[in-house]
Each structure stands twice: as structure tokens, then as C-alpha cells.
């Protein structure tokens, strides 16, 4: 069952590469939050109840509801244009994201490890690299934040793979997620949104040599 969920997650990454509107990014993030909720519910069933509640709250309340609503609010508030404004055409993005997934598949074949579920490994690493790719290939700063949230989802999946034996790591991963998201989104909403309208990385290019 988790395999189905994780493969759906991979498909959502491919969809992300060709999505055009900012709102579809937000929807994909919310959907990924749901997928993570379901897979952590199945995977971490043996964990002690308090930890489990914490994980589930993080995925459902934070990743699925709070962050997408917050992003939506920011987009509406600042009247961002609806386009994601990629540097590369969608077709190229699709090819790159697909090849990222294929390469991580090939890499995971090198592992001679029976204990680790390879699907987790592939999903987590592809999510990481797709997130980096989104950061590198989109113009708006808000899409950079979204790329970062995708990296965080990848980290969450990876920590699920080691979670049952080391719950401490899952929890600290979640705290990292909360802490950085609040820091990034806080700075984003409060400061950059106030100072610059329709933020675009080109406006943050003053510091250079």
C-alpha cells in the first residue's frame, strides 16, 4: 500500500514539472501532504502513540492545511501573477524531472541492503533533486520556497524509512521542517512581501561583485 502512495507521490513530482500556475503548485503540495499522512499512518503503526500523533498532526495540519493556506494567502495578498515563470520550457522540465527519477532508480539498484525499502530511497532522493531543480529553474521567490518545501517532503519520506527504530530522528526532522518553514515563510510574508511587490529573483540581485 505504501508503495502505491509513494509512486503516486513520484507522479505528483512529474506533474509539478509541467504545472503552469502557482495555485497548482499549492494544490500539489497539499496533495503531497495527504500522501505523506497516509504513508506515515501505515508505516509508523508500531511507534508509540504520542510520537505517532505528533507525526500525523505535522503531516495533516501543517503540510496539508496550514502551509498551502498560507501560500494561497500570500499569493492573493501580494497579487502575484499566476504564472510560475520557468526559465525552461515545460517539455524540457518534464524530461529533466523524468531523468532525475530514472537516475535515482538506477542508483538505488546499487544498494545491496535488504533492510531498506528501496521505494522510499528513490522517492526521497528524487524529491530532493526535483526540489533543487525547481529552485534553480523558476523565477519567483515564492516558487523557491515551494521547491524547498518539496525538499522537506523528501526528507520526511527518508526519515520514515528509518523511523520505527529511531523515532528521535523523525521528530527532529519534523521540528526542522516546522522551524525552517516558519523562518522562511515568516521572512517571506513579513518582509519581502512588504518591500517588493511581485517578487522576482531579479530584484534581489544587488549583492554581487
Amino acid at each position: 500500500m505504501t508503495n502505491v502512495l509513494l509512486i503516486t507521490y513520484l507522479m505528483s513530482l512529474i506533474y509539478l514539472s509541467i504545472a503552469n500556475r502557482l495555485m497548482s503548485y499549492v494544490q500539489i503540495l497539499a496533495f503531497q501532504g495527504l500522501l505523506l499522512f497516509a504513508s506515515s499512518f501505515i508505516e509508523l503503526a508500531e511507534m508509540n502513540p504520542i510520537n505517532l500523533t505528533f507525526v500525523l498532526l505535522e503531516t495533516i495540519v501543517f503540510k496539508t492545511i496550514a502551509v498551502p493556506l498560507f501560500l494561497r494567502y500570500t499569493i492573493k495578498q501580494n497579487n502575484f501573477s499566476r504564472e510560475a515563470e520557468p526559465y525552461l520550457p515545460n517539455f524540457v522540465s518534464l524530461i529533466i524531472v523524468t531523468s532525475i527519477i530514472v537516475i535515482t532508480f538506477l542508483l538505488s539498484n546499487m544498494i545491496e541492503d535488504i533492510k531498506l525499502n528501496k521505494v522510499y530511497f528513490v522517492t526521497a532522493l528524487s524529491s530532493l533533486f526535483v526540489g533543487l531543480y525547481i529552485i534553480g529553474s523558476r523565477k519567483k521567490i515564492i516558487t523557491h520556497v515551494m521547491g524547498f518545501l518539496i525538499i522537506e517532503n523528501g526528507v520526511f519520506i527518508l526519515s520514515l524509512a528509518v523511523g520505527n527504530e529511531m523515532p528521535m530522528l523523525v521528530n527532529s526532522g519534523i521540528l526542522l521542517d516546522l522551524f525552517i518553514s516558519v523562518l522562511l515563510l515568516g521572512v517571506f510574508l513579513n518582509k519581502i512581501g512588504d518591500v517588493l511587490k511581485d517578487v522576482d529573483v531579479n530584484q534581489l540581485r544587488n549583492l554581487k561583485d
Partner: protein
Amino acid sequence: MTVPYLIGAFILVSSLFLNRNKKLSYFLVAVFLIMQWIFTVYEYQHKNIEEFGYFVPNAIGLLLLITISIISIPAFYHSFIYFTKHNDSDKSRSIYLAAMVLLIAALSLAYLSNHIGLMWVFVELTTFSASALIYHRRNLRSLEGTWKYIFVCSISITFVFIGILFLSIAVQEVGHANLTYTALLSKATELNTFWLRLAFIFIFTGYTAKLSLVPMFTAGIDAKDKAPSPAGALLSSVLLNIGFLGIFRFYEIIAQTSLLLWTNHIILIASVSSIFIATVYMVKVKNIKRMFAYSSMEHMGIVMLGIVAGGVGYYAAILHLIFHSFVKAGLFFQMGQIYRIFGSKSIYDVGNYFKYNITGAMVVLLAFISATAMPPSGMFISEFMVFRSLFESHYIIVLIFVLMLLTIIIWAFGKNMFKLLFSPPVNFVEENIEKIKPIESLSQFILFGLVIYLGINPPQEMIDLINEAVKNLPL
């Protein structure tokens, strides 16, 4: 005493943050400094005794702790001068002082952490407090610097976390759940090299953001430029040390396994390309503060080369790291005075510094000699030892390449420094320039003097500590 220190620091940080009274703020800072020194002395006397299961004051941690305690005194002194010259609101002063205390406390505890996850938490705290310092001036440029710093550091801190996850997979396979450095070191030979390799790549990439090394160096440069000078001094000296420590602690584990050679190659590529990029920018850069930041990057490249070369290089690397902290901190403190006279950081707007501030000019001259590692500076000795170790370990081509780059760096550094010292500035109105009291340069002289003294006549305790710090590495 780590947990009482932690609690005390948090109480001080929150009261500094809430308090708006100037005198009370300075009193709280003085209390913190006394606490910092009591903590340092206590930990020095309780070397290698585990505290609360997660902290061990071992040799390398103690060396860096003493370094930060020494630098924190002039850092607060120069912050005090900074506030008397700028009309900051009470609120922004409170935030600044609270962030600086938090940064120093988080770094001190990170140095002593024996648990890989705990160290990571404290490193994350340093990102948080450093960004508050960078944003101190509250203008568009500092906003840009802060945003870039937070973003790049968040990505790199995530990378470190991924590395820890991979490491934990390797640890679980040998039937363990203990991620303290001591446990990892004793189990190192049994760990699966595939996971160890992945873990190293991620942890190394992550910590390079703090260490100012390729590939994550960019944000640190902007941060050091945009932060006020006393904060820049901390970012450019003690904050680099935590990046080094993060890599060094993991390198100790790797050094026990068959991956040592592969790891050395990765670090070698990163450090040589850092020195190369630093050279290119030092030639090109027109902003003096950014030039100092690139100079830090070059020195960190040399430190990591010492680690790669091994042998006497390990000793030299740690010595170089400590000396660099003192020199770069002094240089940044001096930068504050330069900015107050000329009102600009651009090389085109400054000049004739000897005429306007003779003590400060002496500091700059001494700093130039120290930072480019010329005798009598102690950095000459450590850098020479790094090169000797490179020679002995047969990295001849690397050595020649690095020496050529260093020659260009000295030329570029000297060109800008001598422009600052001797040639008259263009369109500069001399009338209302500020007279700077010579006493404000005293701390810089002490720091540079310390480097010279420690280079020529290192105390036996320091030699023992450094030798103990590198005892886990193969010869």
C-alpha cells in the same frame, strides 16, 4: 556545566530581547561575558568528562571554545562603540544584542556537543541568530543578504540532516542506535561504506555553507558584507570554525575506514576550487569587506588542504584555523572604523588612511601582514607547515598551483590595502571626519599580537591540546 550554561544563556537572551533599557542591556551582556568565561575555565578543568550524556569537552572543542571566549569580549566592546555612533532604536539594539549572545552561546555548545544530532540543532540556532544580526540595518540590501543566507543555510542544514539519516541507516545495520561521536568512532570500521559515503557527501556539502567553501559559499559572503562589522567579525571567524568542526568530527570517523582516500579527494577538489574562486574574486572585488570575506574563504581552503595532506598538516590545519579566527576578527573590527571615516566600503572612495587615523592605519598594515601570512605573523608558521605536509604527501602539483594562486591573492590584497593606506581618495571632503580614539584599536593590536606570540612561542598546553585533537587521525 553545559546545561546550567544553556539555561543561563537562554534566560539572558530572553531578558535582553525583552528589555529596552540601554544600561540594563549592557549589564546583562557583562553578566553573559562573565558566565562565558566561568564556563570556559570550568570546562577546561573538566576535560574529557562527559556531561549530561551529550556533551564532552574534548581537545578540539576546548580550543575553539577558548577562541570564541577571547573574541567575544572585543566583539561586544565594538558593538558598544557601534551603538554609540549609530542612532538605533531601542528595539533593534535589543534584538542585536540578544542575537549576538544567542550566537555565541549556540556556537559554544555546538563545539562541545558529542552527539551528531545535537550539534546539528545548535548549528541551526546559529543560522537563526546570524540572520537576525545580518538584518540589523533593516534596508533592502540587508534584506537581500538575509534572505539569501536563510535560504542557502536552510538547504544546507537539510542536507546535513539527510546525511545524518543515511548515517543512521548504517548505524542501525550494526545493531546500534547511538549517534554520539564517541560511539560512532568506536564502531567506525563496521559501518557500511555505501551509506557512509552518501552520508559524507551530504554532511560535507551541508557544512560548507558555514565553512565558506565550494559549493555553498555564496550566502556567507553576502552575510559577512551586510552584517554590522562586530557581527561580521563573528560570522567570519568563529562561525567558520563550527563548519570546520562539523566536517572534522565526521572526517575522524571516515578516517578509520577504507574511504579515507576517496574522502581526501573530495575535500581536495572542494578546497582547491575554493582557493581558485577566492583568487578570482579578490582580484575583481571592489568592496573591502567582501574582499575580507573572500580572504576567509581562501584560508579555509588552506585549512582543509592541511587536513587532506595529513601528517603535520593536521596540526597545522587546526593552528591555522585558530590564528585565522583572531586575525579575521581583528580585521573586521577595524573595518567598522574605516566605514565611520569614509562612509563607504568601496575601494574607490577610501584612501590616505594614514592621514586620518594613524593608529587604525597601523592596525590595517599589521592586519595585511597577518592575513597574507607573512612573518612574523603566526599564520606564516601554520601555512608553511601546511605546505610542507602537502610536499611530504606528494601533492606537488596541487602545491604549486595553490602557491601561484596565493601569490595573486597577496598581490590583490596588497593592491587594495595600499590604496586604502596611502593614495588620496577622490572627491572626499576632509572637514567633518570623525576623530577616532586610539584606544578603540587596542583590541585589534592584542589579537594580532596574540597571533604573533602564539606562532613564535606556543604554550605547551596549546600544543598538547592540538596534538590530542588530532590523535584519532591516521599518521
